[in-house]
């Protein structure tokens, strides 16, 4: 029943807290949560991320589940989108503008580029907005916030898988057989995910503080597409500008996808640069995110 004993310890103005600490430290050392102000750069708590991995799974599962609820054709949208884009691009850039496609039929050429690009652009747009879209979650409950932008990548992966099925169909239609280098595809996909994750995490944390980026990000993604060799091959870019283009990780990644899918030589140099830049973006993104994270609940 009711407890009436009142300990004198329960009073404001507790004296030296460290003195009490020492007495009880041995018993429950790793079970104590310490809350105190932190300034500057904060380490990532990998252990916490690992123990919360189920949550990441559920957040991804939720996004996938919700995405096509109450739609008539459901997951077919994931296929329809890139296919329509492919058809339009083939007409405009391939048939009318006569953009070269390295000797491959233009539809298959542009689709090989659209595969990683659609994944990347959707993932970046989604995860950039993810924190403000889920502000309620951020302001009402504690969990590793990195999961929010990170989980937004998951839906993109599923869409990628679906649109890849279409690509297989295209390959059959054009009787185009990829070589053994197709085995590199998972590595390339992972690299795309790293680039998208880094950019998304970076942008999501900035967007919380400066809502300007709500407008900037979609525009940025749009421009980014034209700066990446999605509708054109890198070979049409003058030699002296190619190194600048390579700084854009999507240049190397899309080049890699094309090389692997269309059985062409892969530009390893550009791919290496892409890998380095992607990792740098990811690290910068996480660092910035952790630095701003403590203010999220105040400003979200």
């Amino acid at each position, binding site marked *: 029943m009711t407890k009436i004993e009142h300990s004198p310890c329960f009073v404001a103005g507790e004296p030296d807290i460290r003195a009490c600490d020492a007495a009880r430290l041995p018993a429950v050392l790793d*079970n*104590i949560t310490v809350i105190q102000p932190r300034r500057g750069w904060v380490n990532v708590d990998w252990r916490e991320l690992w123990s919360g991995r189920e949550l990441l799974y559920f957040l991804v599962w939720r996004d996938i589940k919700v995405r096509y609820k109450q739609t008539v054709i459901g997951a077919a949208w994931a296929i329809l989108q890139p296919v329509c884009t492919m058809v339009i691009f083939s007409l405009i850039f391939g048939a009318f503008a006569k953009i070269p496609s390295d000797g491959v039929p233009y539809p298959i050429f542009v689709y090989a580029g659209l595969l990683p690009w659609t994944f990347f652009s959707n993932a970046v747009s989604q995860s950039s907005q993810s924190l403000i879209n889920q502000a309620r979650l951020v302001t009402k409950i504690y969990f590793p916030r990195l999961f929010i932008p990170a989980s937004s990548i998951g839906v993109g992966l599923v869409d990628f898988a679906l649109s890849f099925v279409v690509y297989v169909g295209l390959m059959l239609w054009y009787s185009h057989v990829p070589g053994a280098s197709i085995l590199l595809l998972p590595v390339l996909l992972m690299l795309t995910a790293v680039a998208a994750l880094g950019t998304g995490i970076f942008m999501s944390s900035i967007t919380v503080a400066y809502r300007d980026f709500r407008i900037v990000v979609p525009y940025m993604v749009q421009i980014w597409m034209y700066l990446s060799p999605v509708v054109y091959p890198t070979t049409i870019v003058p030699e002296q500008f190619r190194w600048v283009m390579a700084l854009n990780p999507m240049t190397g990644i899309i080049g890699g996808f094309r090389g692997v899918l269309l059985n062409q030589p892969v530009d390893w140099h550009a791919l290496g640069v892409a890998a380095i830049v992607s990792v740098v973006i990811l690290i910068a993104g996480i660092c910035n995110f952790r630095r701003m994270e403590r203010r999220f609940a105040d400003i979200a």
Partner: protein
Amino acid sequence: MSSSALRVHEIGKQYKLGSRETTRRNFGEALLHGLGAPLRRLRYLGEKSNGDDLFWALRGVSFDVEQGDVVGVIGRNGAGKSTLLKILSRVVHPTEGRAEIRGRVGSLLEVGTGFHPELSGRENIYLNGTILGMKRDEIRRKFDEIVAFSEIEKFLDTPVKRYSSGMYVRLAFAVAAHLEPEVLIVDEVLAVGDAAFQRKCLGKMGDVAGAGRTVLFVSHNMQAVSHLCNKAVLLDKGRIRESGPAREIIENYIRGSVSNDADSEIVHARTTPDAAVMIDAVTTSCNGALTREFDLAQPIRLKISYTVRRPREGIYLVFTVRTLLGLPVFTPSNADMDDEDEPFEHQGALDPAPHSGTAEIEIPPYVLNAGTFEINVASYAPGHGTVDLVTNTIITVHDSGSYASRPFNRSRDGLVLCRLPWRLTQDVLQTQGA
């Protein structure tokens, strides 16, 4: 001391006024905001921290909570209650100070955080449970229990957006209630659901507390706080004003919010300026001395002065003793007097002729239990209602220990003490001997 589940040391949270960003609703607003942003930023940089725009939502808050304590955090709106809970749930970062929590923390700052309207009840149980920090196996194990508690079995596979708000809240609370953290932090979430469900929620929280867990609970429902909590922290403008036994703190808090004249022997609040029978004054005394403080071993003498200003038949005097939470304890009346010569309707009624008089009543010792009570005195005409009402006479009954120490060494539960004649009979046990 070593069993502290939670220690808070000089915690403070500072906000910058005006820096709180609001979501832009439409594109035009967004565009304007975008255009104005450079200007605004420059202005912010220009007037850097002159101190005026800084606001401490919480400052210098320190307290300790023992394991198994149920602590009510009370205070007026804006006192910093929610900020405190948010800091302890790690949602918000403190500006200064330090807090330590031992064990797993579960916090429920809002019912249904993380629910997705498109997902079914079943799916949301898993999603919400994981967000609150449960493992999947744990949810699977408690799934049936959660469903039973929420009473939504039939709608388990319906998207929650089709739920009535009551169903929604029930499900959300059910999930949260089955979280089994060592420290549970609950913000005002019980103001939802119907009365039956609220009782169920309170019961569930009582169970949680009974299982030796520590609960931190914010509510404006003093009844709930006094029912659930054994300790309380009273916050006022971001600082701790008082902390200690729940009942005491709650009473002080309520008394603080009711205007109370210290030395008043006199009328406090009158509803009717021109009543036929006016209550002029209400005083309480003990052993001839006016006082508002009593020991439960002492009689409480109540003196009511009244005036019958116009001839009026059939008026009675009544008074109600209430707890500060508004629960009536009893309502005696002078109609209770035995006067067998008078016909029943006039029994104990005041003399209808204009006069002034006093009524003295004594509440015997060992009737009211320790606590603070409000006495409302009224003149009352059956069939017509209250004629004149005087409220706000507040008395406190203390337990100096005489009663408590016999032999339980703690006060008895309840509003009134009830000393009954007990008759015990005993039988000799038939031991089955070999």
